[in-house]
């Protein structure tokens, strides 16, 4: 595979002016090759220069960027310093790019057909009919059905996964030699992510093109790439075959990246329920009317029953839209439109939000933000409040000087520490962490998770951890509940659930995680994207997507039943008993 080099990057150094004639270097003497038909991955945290490398190759660097040194060659010809016209030709014919955000990288006012065909219009002299035929072909090859109909629709009519497929169709239509994918699956659900990766592999096999795959997620890289480049602070710290780098990392940073999964919890927890939820329904008002009545609300989460034991970490997983956050809102009192029993055991649940950039008030200093819960609790003494703030700051691994800063002066990880500190200010015993690390870099993620585990151990903190990252849940939680479309479909101890998933949806979730044990055969996953059924129906909500679906699934309302033992219950909402090895 190395015999024919497609792209060769030598000593590439790029910087940005930092004022007063200084230049801030973002890429520092980068050297690597991409062979013909090879999939190369670049991994690193944000700010490591991954995207800058891609943009340099594509010639999409912003005008401010200064190329200080080096060359980028395409089949032996320099493409770094060429004029606009030649560059345009290369961009259309030889290489294309798939971006991270399928929501914003498609033009919202252009029909899908026109957008996908745009490249051909610009770079070939093909007739309109021929272009249309090629677009339809391309859409079919990325697994989208009914291309004729799809070509007439607009991006907002498509789901995130479909949009990313359209982006890929757009990228491959003119049969480029190189496709650069910049975090193409980061914005997607795990199940959709696995489908997109499988699709990229299929395209690679069929079209024999090279792919430069950029991701911060090692598991994704491991899944798809042949060779991997590890970047850190604008330099390449290590490169080699996937197996070499993953299983015998030479550089410290690579080891840190690989080791950034948190330690596993293994301790016995009490069976003493702290939180008791029984038959809880949570509603949302449907907006748009002046006078709303009870009829205008829709049930978003139905028949929710669970206990959270004192001192455990309880995991809640499911894809976006399944009602995870809605449950958190009900428990914290942000959504009061509920029916059923909710016993909070005298606690006042505190919440750590997903996005640390919007969960801290930008107009207040950190000290004031942290003092607020004490003020609300009626602590009048100023010095007492200050002391408590300093105490908590130390506990979350920051020092007293942070009290005088504003949130915007802090990094994402530091902000999330503050958000955790805020939840601890009043010494509450129960906190809800709603996707607490999904907005953070991998290495920072593990620090925050370690902080949560430490607090859990030291303070005996009970945590409800909401996450779509099944690896994190496995490492952190004692028990796990899986939700689908507003209902619990399965609940069990973490080991039982991961070893013996019984619900078809849980299995689908697990198949889509990319574990480090084996390379899952992602080609096998062929789940259609079906519009989900209504939430208030009685029959199995997963019916439309279930690969084991039978006629009897439509018949009756389903109860959660215990298929485990009395001692360690394994609750399941499915009318089928699927054999373990099916």
């Amino acid at each position, binding site marked *: 595979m190395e015999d024919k080099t497609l792209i060769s990057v030598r000593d590439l150094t790029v910087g940005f002016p930092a004022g007063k004639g200084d230049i801030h270097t973002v890429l520092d003497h980068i050297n690597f090759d991409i062979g013909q038909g090879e999939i190369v991955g670049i991994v690193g945290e944000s700010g490591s220069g991954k995207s800058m490398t891609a943009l340099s190759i594509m010639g999409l660097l912003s005008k401010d960027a200064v190329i200080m040194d080096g060359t980028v060659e395409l089949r032996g010809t320099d493409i770094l310093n060429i004029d606009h016209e030649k560059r345009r030709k290369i961009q259309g014919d030889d290489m294309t790019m798939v971006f991270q955000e399928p929501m914003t990288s498609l033009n919202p006012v252009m029909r899908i057909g026109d957008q996908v065909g745009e490249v051909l219009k610009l770079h070939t002299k093909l007739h309109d009919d021929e272009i249309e035929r090629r677009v339809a072909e391309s859409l079919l090859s990325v697994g989208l059905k009914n291309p004729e109909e799809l070509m007439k629709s607009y991006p907002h009519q498509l789901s995130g996964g479909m949009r990313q497929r359209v982006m890929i169709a757009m990228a491959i239509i003119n049969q480029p030699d190189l496709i650069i994918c910049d975090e193409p699956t980061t914005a997607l659900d795990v199940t959709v992510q696995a489908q997109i990766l499988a699709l990229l592999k299929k395209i690679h096999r069929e079209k024999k093109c090279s792919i430069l795959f950029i991701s911060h997620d090692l598991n994704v890289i491991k899944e798809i790439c042949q060779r991997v480049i590890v970047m850190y602070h604008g330099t390449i710290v290590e490169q080699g075959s996937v197996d070499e780098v993953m299983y015998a990392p030479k550089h410290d940073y690579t080891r840190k990246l690989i080791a950034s999964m948190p330690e596993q919890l293994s301790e016995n927890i009490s069976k003493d329920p702290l939180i008791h939820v029984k038959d809880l329904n949570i509603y949302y008002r449907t907006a748009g009317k002046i006078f709303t009545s009870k009829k205008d609300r829709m049930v978003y989460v139905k028949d929710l029953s669970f206990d959270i034991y004192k001192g455990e970490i309880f995991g809640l997983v499911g894809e976006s839209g399944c009602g995870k956050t809605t449950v958190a809102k009900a428990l914290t009192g942000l959504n009061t439109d509920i029916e059923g029993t909710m016993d909070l055991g005298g606690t006042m649940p505190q919440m750590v939000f997903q996005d640390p950039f919007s969960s801290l008030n930008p107009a207040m200093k950190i000290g004031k933000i942290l003092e607020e819960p004490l003020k*609300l609790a009626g602590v009048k003494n100023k010095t007492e409040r200050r002391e408590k703030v300093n105490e908590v700051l130390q506990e979350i691994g920051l020092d007293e000087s942070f009290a005088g800063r504003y949130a915007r002066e802090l990094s994402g990880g530091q902000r999330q520490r503050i958000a955790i500190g805020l939840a601890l200010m009043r010494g509450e015993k129960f906190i809800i962490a709603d996707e607490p690390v999904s907005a953070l870099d991998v290495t920072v993620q593990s620090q925050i998770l370690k902080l949560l585990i430490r607090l859990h151990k030291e303070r005996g903190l009970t945590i409800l951890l909401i996450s779509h990252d099944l690896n994190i849940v496995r490492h952190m939680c004692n028990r796990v509940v899986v939700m689908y479309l507003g209902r619990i479909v399965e609940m069990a101890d973490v080991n039982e659930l991961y070893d013996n998933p019984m619900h078809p949806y849980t299995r689908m979730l697990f198949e889509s995680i990319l574990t480090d044990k084996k390379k899952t055969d992602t080609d096998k996953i062929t789940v259609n994207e079906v519009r989900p059924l209504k939430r208030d129906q009685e029959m199995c909500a997963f019916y439309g997507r279930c690969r084991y679906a039978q006629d009897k699934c439509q018949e009756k309302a389903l109860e959660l039943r215990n298929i485990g033992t009395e001692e360690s219950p394994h609750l399941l909402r499915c009318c089928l008993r699927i054999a373990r090895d099916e």
Partner: protein
Amino acid sequence: MKKRNYNLIIGLTITGVLLLFTLIGQFWTPYSITETNVALKNAAPSLEHLMGCDNLGRDILSRVMKGCGTTFFVALLTVAIGSVFGTIIGALTGFYGGWLDRIVMRINDILLSFPSVLLVLIFISVIGKGKYNVILALGILFIPSFVRMVRSEVIRYKEQEFVKSARVLGAGNMRIIFVHILPNISVSMLTTAAIGFNNAVLAEASMSYLGLGVQPPEPSLGRMLSEAQGYVFNAPWYAIWPGIVIVLIILGFSLISEGLRKMTES
């Protein structure tokens, strides 16, 4: 590399000098502002009377100094009424939404769709003329622009996670609105207030010009312009000086509001 905010610097300088000028005028003026002197009727600017004298022989510099104070006083109170009530109404309607919001916004639209001078005229004809009535009328008419701005900002912030975070901590609605949300929009409020101040200066000038606002012999910049219009040809300085000061006040505050806007954008 930080660019200097020249708008703010120049605006603050102009306004600062004017405020000093006005402040001195409240305690000391070169001549009496009411004493007339037939011999000096429409006297041209000279070393004794730097800005000249008016139709009754009064020193224009002294009257401008004093009149500036009246104008500032009226404008400040107007903006105060408008911003305090506007902020409270806007914050509450934006935060709670629902039918209250709809009703208030429709009233707002109606008030905004008439020329404000016309509305003030109607108002004055009902409650009578005079400095304080003009302040009241203008103040009420300035409420809608604050309501609109504060409401839209509150709506923007109320769904942010820090607001939810405060609620989870147990903060009540009033505390969330006034302690957590409003500090975030203080700069927008200052900008709107600066623009409102300009409009108030102009409105006071026009009201006094029409004879409805400040009553003689108390000087105000608008009043002086109104009195000067009969003498534009034989004593142009009578109209020019108050006019220049009005222009400077407006320029100063416009630059300040522009500067504040730039400051928030960077």
